[in-house]
């Protein structure tokens, strides 16, 4: 029997890693992947809780999250591509025009 606490701890760790990656990395694609990782961590937590309470809603939520993630990736990569076309760069810091 899988210990639920550890599953949730795992999700926390993955989420942390994803966060750090999303903050620290400059490569746009890697940032996107880190966000995916964060989403997955959340999914894991949801699944763990659904197992904990014996309630399927959590898994439904996971399905929704997966769908959203897919959509997000599609649009995000679209942005990446057009960005790369326009300024030949993958560096997040090169796209900081939208400021004061």
């Amino acid at each position, binding site marked *: 029997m899988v210990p639920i606490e550890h599953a949730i701890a795992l999700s926390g760790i993955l989420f942390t890693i994803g*966060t750090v990656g*999303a*903050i*620290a990395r400059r490569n746009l694609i890697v*940032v996107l992947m880190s966000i995916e990782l964060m989403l997955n961590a959340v999914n894991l937590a949801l699944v763990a809780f659904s197992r904990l309470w014996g309630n399927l809603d959590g898994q439904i939520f996971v399905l929704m999250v997966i769908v959203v993630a897919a959509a997000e990736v599609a649009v995000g990569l679209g942005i990446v591509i057009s960005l790369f076309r326009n300024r030949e760069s993958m560096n*997040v*810091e090169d796209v*900081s025009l939208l400021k004061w």
Partner: protein
Amino acid sequence: MVDELTQSQLLRWIPLLPLLAAAVHGVLLVVVRRTLPRGLVILLSCGAVIASFLLSFVALIELVGVEGERILVDNVYTWIGAGRFSADVAYLLDPLSAAMSLTVTGVGSLIHVYSIGYMDEDHREDKGFQRFFCYLNLFMFAMLTLVLGDNLLLMFLGWEGVGLCSYLLIGFWYADRFNAYCGAKAFIVNRIGDFGFLVGIFLLFWSLADAGQAAVAFRDIEAGLAAIVERTVVLPDWLGFLPGAPEWRLTTLIGICLFVGAMGKSAQIPLYVWLPDAMAGPTPVSALIHAATMVTAGVYMVCRMSFLYAEAPGASALVAWTGAITAIFAATIAIAQTDIKKVLAYSTVSQLGYMFLAAGVGAYSAAIFHLVTHAFFKALLFLGSGAVILAMHHEQNTDKMGGLRSYIPRTHAVFGIGVIAIAGLPYIASGFFSKDEILLSAYLAHHVPGYMALWGIGVVTAGITAFYMFRVHFRTFFGECRAPEEVRSHIHEPKNVVLVPLYVLAFLAIFGGYLGPSEAFVPVPDANSLGNFLLPALSQEAHHVAHSTEYALAGLTTGIILLGILFAYLLYVRRPELPGRIAASLGGLSRAVANKYYVDEIYDAVIVRPLVLISDRVFFRGIDATLIDEVGANGSARAVRMLASNVLKYLQSGLAQGYLFLMIAGALAIIGYLTR
């Protein structure tokens, strides 16, 4: 508590039909911007009103058919439902509202028909014709809502509605600034009254709510009133001079507040000033709104709340005295007016005074009776004057008239009937019975302080009324014509569409009184049918008095009336030069009277100017412009801008990761705080 009463789906259509007509007109005029052909307009508007008249008649028959408590209700839907407070859009037909609605719709239909002829020349001018009938129908709806509404809120809706329509119609010929000004004046003065009315409603509702009887429907209020009858309120010291201070009964206070509303709507001292100016509107409007129906709304309201006033002697006394003083005050002003419509306006004010006098002394049925008869003959008079004005090509000044008898005999006849009716000659005038009943009840009202004085004032006013009405009549129709030649050549009888309503009204003006004469004069069983019909709806105890006293009083009154007529005859037919000399000899007094005692000027100086000054200097320039706009709105905005543009903007680095960092940090902080 309404549910076990007899339901009748019919009632809702009485107010609804005119509303529909008005809506059609309004949509066409405002949205589609097209006017119907004249015939359709007439068919629609007059059709709607006449239909609702017939409906009210049917409803009356249904009502008489009801055994037990004579009440019909029609719950349309729940208008406002909030917790234990709920106000329905529900219509209630009891004898009182039945009489009212019949009067309103009946006179209303006649005047609608009359307007077809009167507004004739407006129908080729821009949309005027249709606009007029749109307003008129809207007014009918509002008035009927006021009359038939079964709760205070609905009544208030109608109350405001009629105010709006009166404003719109007074300023109907808005091209002339003066008319627009008169409309505004009427509206504002009414607002003052409405404020009092509203306060009264709130006071009543909350005091009932305190007693756990929260209600707005009249019947519920009546039921719950017992809970607050004993309540008293302590007046502040600076009101110590008031009679009965420092402790008043709550009902008295409520009654006074409501009566303030009545003052405004029904043009009582001190809020009567708008009514004479309201004559700026078309004559049918003056007849319908400012004589027959709307201005009587106050009287109706007092009668409707009679159960309250019966418990509020102080308020009743105030009502009675206000009515009496207004009656004689307006009558004296009317003596010196030359504008025919102004005279009628002041006579309306004074007749309303009569009604309030009656209501004040507790003779509500008499008040309603007089209301009905007055509706008949005053409408007749106004329409008659309208006919005269038409004939004289919109000349209203009686100085420019005279001797019209020979030019327009029919109009002369009907107008004469109206004059007799209002003067109240026995048996041939509807005015006689109602006025006499009022005076009688005033004479018997021992519970009202100074009732003899009230009665005396009533009698004198009767005389004065007779005098000035005949004065107008003589000045208009007798003597030699003072009109300029080119006008004189065109004087003509109005069209039949104008005359027919006049005939009908003339008939009513004569025989309308037989709706409810006292047995003393018409010795048949249940002669005072209207009174007996009304009694159950009102909380009033019928008075019993020896016929001899009635004869004596009536005789006295009649004598004084005849005296007034005689004076008028002497002064304006026999010796037309006398009045000028008398006026000259009286000097200042006559000038004061001619200038309506300078009341408008006084108000202007004392209230209007200071108010305007303060509003402009202090409230507008001082508080609004400076404090709120500059400091409040712009100041805060400026502050935010400074902060943002100098400090906070550096947070927006454009680096998404920076935002993410801040977001996480914030989330951490919140979580840490919540789970500390």
